[in-house]
Structures are given as structure tokens and as C-alpha cells.
């Protein structure tokens, strides 16, 4: 009798374990398109985007956007007459894992690699692609390290660099708003947060503005009281506070500042582009905030936006809530157009085509410099304003003479 009970219990445990494995499978595999092995008439795009961990809030929307692009392209006959198979393996916000899953995808026959939205987390995927002679494109890494100089001659980012992002913010602050003094808070977390502040400061000072101080913060510290105390005790009140940080701590920082009644305008980069942040700040604290991001989810902002919004809703059953979804779409579209122009998925041919072409994307026009010049992405930033917890699109901004990386 007891033996039977034991077996039943073991079976139940095994079923439970399978259930868990299945759940994890959904998270890690997330295959889109036909789940068959790579055949000749298929074109295989591998993704190493992180669906878990700190990078997930940025990577998950880009994955959703990429999936929409793959569906849309397949409906129109795919790339080079081949249907696209897109598989994403969870990079888990861990650089080593990101590199490993990229290698795994390449071994399975990937023709090109979609890398995560950051240099520190996404770089390993591009390195794996470069080693295999494939084109790798990061969906939205904006560190100037994301290019051919650090990663290789077949590696690109679909995003503007922080040189553009930081300078666009500085130029809007100084020229459009007339703010002459800035206080900068830099999260020392990753290259993105550090270089964004650096180029904001450089351009703001070049324009003639004064940076009162650059204060530091570390992601995960969860305690902003010291920095807040220093802002409160400033002799001279700044015209604008530039905060280069990341969610979730970005929410804590802005809230802490607004809570104690500091109403100074706040500016930042694309990490602000998160409905989670707008909602967390709400009507009470979500005021006088401007940020530079990739695009804005509204018809007419860029050609093809209406089409994207419609298709996104068809595939996912809801409207996109952040412009990062467009970056996933753009990344796949860059790959598609480059492969069509090159007439092949060969890494060298595609990279050459990408250097020559001008892309008309949901995130504006994009031109790459040559590999010798680092694959500099010439792009505009989208300026978005947050008032009463609601965003509105201000316009495109191309800074004049942005700082050199």
C-alpha cells in the first residue's frame, strides 16, 4: 500500500517538475514562426534578448516588436524569398549567458543575431556573431562602444549613440528652454548611464551652460537620501536636473526629489521611456520631465508608424506601450533591407550594404559610417515631455556638432 502511495507521489512530483520545466521553456525559448529544424528555404534570425533580470524591461518590448516585424515580413514573402524563423533564447541579463545563447543559436544555424539593448549586456552576443562572421545588431544599445571599433566590422546598433542622446538633451535644455545651469546625477551602474551623463555635460558646457555638480549613485543602493540632501543644500538652485539612471531605481530617485517639493525640471535618456515609470510617478510627481528616446508611439511620428501600431495590436492584442517595441521592429527591418540589398545573408556583404544604405525607420532616418569610423549611427532623438503623468511628443532633435565619442 505504502509503495503505491510513494509511486503516486513521485508521479505527482514528476508532473509538477515537468510543469515547471514547461513554464521555463516558454520563458527561455519563446520561438516564433515554424518550430521545425532549419531548412534550406528558411532564414534564421537568432535573438539573445533577456526576458528575465534587470535588462528584461528593455528587451522584452523589443522582442515583441521584432516578432511583429517577422510576422509582417513573412506575410509578404519573407527575406530573399525565404520565410523567416525567429528564435529568442533568454539571455537572463547576464553577459556570460547572453554570449552562450548567441553561440548556441549560431550552432543551430542562425544567419544573423539580434543582440540585447545594451553594450554591457548585449556586447557578448555581438562578439559571438562577429566570430562566426555574422551581422549582429543591438536593438537599442546607445553606448558609443556599440559599433565596429569595440565589437567588429559586422556589428551595429539600431539606436543613436549616447553622443546624440546626451547632446540632444543638452541642446533642448540650453537652446529651447534657456536653462543655463544643470545638476547631474549619474548612476555608475553601466556604460550607458555613465556615458550618457558624460556627453550631456560635454555638450551643455560647449553650448555655454554650467554644470554645478555631477553626483553619483549606484543602481540597487535604494537609498537616495545623501544625494537628495546635497541637492537640497545647494547655494545656487539649478535650472535643470539631469538624471542618468535606470529602472527600477530611476523611479525611486525622481519620486524622492519630487516628494520633498523640488519642482526643478528633470531630464534624461531613453531609460525614462517606460509606462511603469510614468504610472509610478503619477499625476502628483510626473511633472516637468523631458527625455530623449527613440521614437513615440503615435501615428504620423514616423512613416509606417500607423501600419506598425495596427500590426502590433493584431499580433499581441494590445497597443504597444513603449517606443522600445519599435526598436525590435526596426532591427529586423534593417536586417531584411540589408540582406535584400546584399542579395545574401553573408556577413561581409550585409555589413557593406548597411554602410552604404540609408534606412527609413520607425525611429527616424539612420545612416551608418564605415567600419573604420566605428559604424557611427547618424540618427535623430525623439523628445518627449511628461506632464501630469502623461507623455506628449515634442519633436525630433538632431544636435549640431555632438561630442565625439
Amino acid at each position, binding site marked *: 500500500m505504502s509503495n503505491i502511495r510513494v509511486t503516486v507521489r513521485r508521479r505527482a512530483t514528476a508532473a509538477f517538475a515537468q510543469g515547471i520545466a514547461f*513554464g521555463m521553456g516558454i520563458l527561455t525559448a519563446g520561438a516564433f514562426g515554424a518550430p521545425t529544424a532549419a531548412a534550406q528555404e528558411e532564414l534564421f534570425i537568432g535573438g539573445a534578448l533577456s526576458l*528575465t533580470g534587470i535588462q528584461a*524591461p528593455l528587451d522584452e518590448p523589443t522582442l515583441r516588436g521584432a516578432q511583429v516585424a517577422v510576422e509582417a515580413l513573412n506575410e509578404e514573402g519573407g527575406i530573399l524569398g525565404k520565410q523567416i524563423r525567429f528564435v529568442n533564447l533568454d539571455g537572463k541579463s547576464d553577459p556570460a549567458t547572453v554570449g552562450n545563447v548567441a553561440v548556441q543559436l549560431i550552432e543551430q544555424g542562425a544567419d544573423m543575431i539580434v543582440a540585447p539593448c545594451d553594450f554591457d549586456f548585449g556586447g557578448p552576443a555581438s562578439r559571438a556573431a562577429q566570430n562566426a562572421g555574422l551581422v549582429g545588431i543591438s536593438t537599442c544599445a546607445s553606448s558609443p562602444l556599440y559599433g565596429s571599433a569595440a565589437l567588429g566590422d559586422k556589428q551595429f546598433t539600431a539606436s543613436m549613440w549616447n553622443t546624440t542622446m546626451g547632446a540632444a538633451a543638452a541642446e533642448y535644455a540650453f537652446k529651447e528652454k534657456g536653462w543655463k545651469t544643470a545638476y547631474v546625477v549619474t548612476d555608475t551602474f553601466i556604460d550607458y548611464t555613465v556615458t550618457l551623463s558624460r556627453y550631456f555635460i560635454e555638450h551643455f558646457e560647449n553650448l555655454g551652460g554650467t554644470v554645478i555638480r555631477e553626483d553619483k549613485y549606484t543602481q540597487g543602493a535604494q537609498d537616495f537620501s545623501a544625494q537628495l540632501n546635497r541637492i537640497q543644500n545647494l547655494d545656487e538652485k539649478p535650472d535643470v536636473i539631469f538624471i542618468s539612471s535606470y529602472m527600477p531605481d530611476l523611479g525611486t530617485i525622481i519620486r524622492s526629489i519630487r516628494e520633498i517639493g523640488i519642482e526643478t525640471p528633470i531630464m534624461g535618456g531613453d531609460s525614462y521611456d517606460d509606462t*511603469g515609470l510614468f504610472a509610478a510617478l503619477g499625476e502628483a510627481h510626473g511633472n516637468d520631465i523631458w527625455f530623449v528616446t527613440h521614437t513615440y508611439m503615435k501615428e504620423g511620428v514616423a512613416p509606417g508608424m500607423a501600419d506598425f501600431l495596427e500590426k502590433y495590436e493584431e499580433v499581441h492584442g494590445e497597443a504597444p506601450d513603449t517606443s522600445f517595441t519599435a526598436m525590435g521592429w526596426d532591427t529586423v527591418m534593417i536586417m531584411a533591407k540589408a540582406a535584400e540589398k546584399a542579395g545574401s545573408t553573408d556577413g561581409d556583404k550585409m555589413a557593406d550594404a548597411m554602410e552604404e544604405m540609408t534606412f527609413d525607420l520607425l525611429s527616424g532616418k539612420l545612416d551608418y559610417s564605415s567600419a573604420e569610423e566605428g559604424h557611427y549611427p547618424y540618427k535623430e532623438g525623439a523628445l518627449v515631455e511628461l506632464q501630469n503623468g502623461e507623455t506628449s511628443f515634442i519633436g525630433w532633435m538632431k544636435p549640431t556638432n555632438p561630442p565625439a565619442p
Partner: protein
Amino acid sequence: MGDFTYLLISGLSLGSLYALMALGLVIVYGILRLVNFAYGEYIMVAGYTLFLLSPSPLPWLVMAVVAAVMAAVMSYLTERIAFRPVREKSLTAMLITSFAVSTLLQNAALLFVSPRARVVPTPGIFSETVIIAGNVTPVREILAIVVSVALLIGFSILLRKTILGIALRAAADKFTMTRMLGVPANLVISAAFVISGLLAGIVAIFWLGRTGSVTPGIGLTPLLVAFVSTVIGGMRSLSGAVVGGYVLAFVTIIFNNLLPGDLYEFREAFIFTIVILILLFRPEGLVRGRG
């Protein structure tokens, strides 16, 4: 003077939360010798409960109570479903189980909600400020101190005056002996997990109130903080956990405020140097427990 009060209030407010977190972790450790790595996830559960309740017309206080209770229920369930079956096996089995529970809960949040931040409702009073010694201070910080101190007092009365409390303390001291004297082990362990979860739930209200949002990975920092606090304070003593929490918070706040900009990046290194120094001189922590 203004700066000093500011440091004091920041330190007390952060320290109160740290102390409660540490207490929640050590109350289970004391009895089972298990560092429950799923502890941070109870904070996450409370957060998502708040998020799910936010469309309802319930007053905020009710939501907060439900959220804290949900954390306690989750803690109880993990003990009942995950830990109890492996309790007799080995300590390592339980430790691995606690990692499994943590991963499972985090992935559940990822799958069923979203990897992106979700908003938790906060009451108006959390955004209000008062001026103390010339510093604008959020009322939330004062509330955190008051609630935590009240809880700590209530908890120590529970431990000293009630039968359950005496059983808990006895179990933490000499578990086998306590069982031999007729105290039901399952009841004591369940009670410890419920209290542990409840403390996590209450901490969650204030911890999440700082950001106004919850993410699947929100529990990691509280778990680490609680763990380091208990190590500083003494793993075998409940009061040690509280002391450790306040010490860690003050060390953090002092370095935050006094380190010059260039050294701030190495803040953690400074904090942990202090922790190492404490452990060199007091290897068993600041407060030595018995047994």
C-alpha cells in the same frame, strides 16, 4: 545640526526596515538553521497583491493589510508545500529548495504579469513632507520608523509573554529539547514562517512606497540586506538581527553622505570593509546568542 538630524532620520528609517527584514529572516534561521532565500519573494508577493488590488475601490489601508497577509500566507504555503517534505532530509536540501521556491515565484511573476515594473498604489500621506530641524522630510520615513518600532515592541512582548513566543524562543535555542518537552514542531515552525512572511509584507509596504512600483526581481536587495544584517548582528540572536539592521543602515547612510564623489563608486567596498572588520573582532556577530 540640521545635517545630523537628517542623517539620524534617514538612518533610523532605513534601519527600521532593515531590522524588520533581518528579523523575518533570522526567526526562521533560529529554528531551522535555514537561510530562506525565498524570503525576498514574499516582499514581491505583497507588491503584486497591491498591484492586483489597485483597480478595486478598497481603501488603501485595507489593500495594505491584505498584501501583508498575502505575504504571510505565501510564507506559510512555502513552508507547508516546499520545506516540510524535505525538512527531515538535510539542511542542504532545504537550502536548495529555498532557491527553487525563489526562482519559481519570480518566474511566475514574469510569466503571469510582466518583467516590467508595475505600479503599486501608495496613500497620499506617503507623499507628504514635514520640516524637521530645517530639513524637508517625507512623512513616509517617519511612519516607517514609528510602525517598525511599534512592531519590534509588539514582537518582543509576543516573545516574552505568550506561550507561542516562549515556544518560539525555546525552539530557537534548543529545537530537539523543545520537541521532547512536548512542543509540536510543525506548529512552531509554521508560526515562525507566518511571522517571517508578515514582517516581509509590512516591510514591502514601505519599501515599495519608495519606488511606487514592483518588479519580479524586487526581492533581491531586501534579501541581501537581511542576510548581511543578520551576519553582522549575530545569526543566533533575534535582537542581534535588529542591531545588525540598524548598524548596516547607519554605516550605509554615513558613507553615502560623507564619501566624496570619486570614492562614492566604491561605497559598497567601504561598507563591506566595515562588515569584515566587525566580523574579525566579533566572529559570531555583535550579539552572541546561546546554543
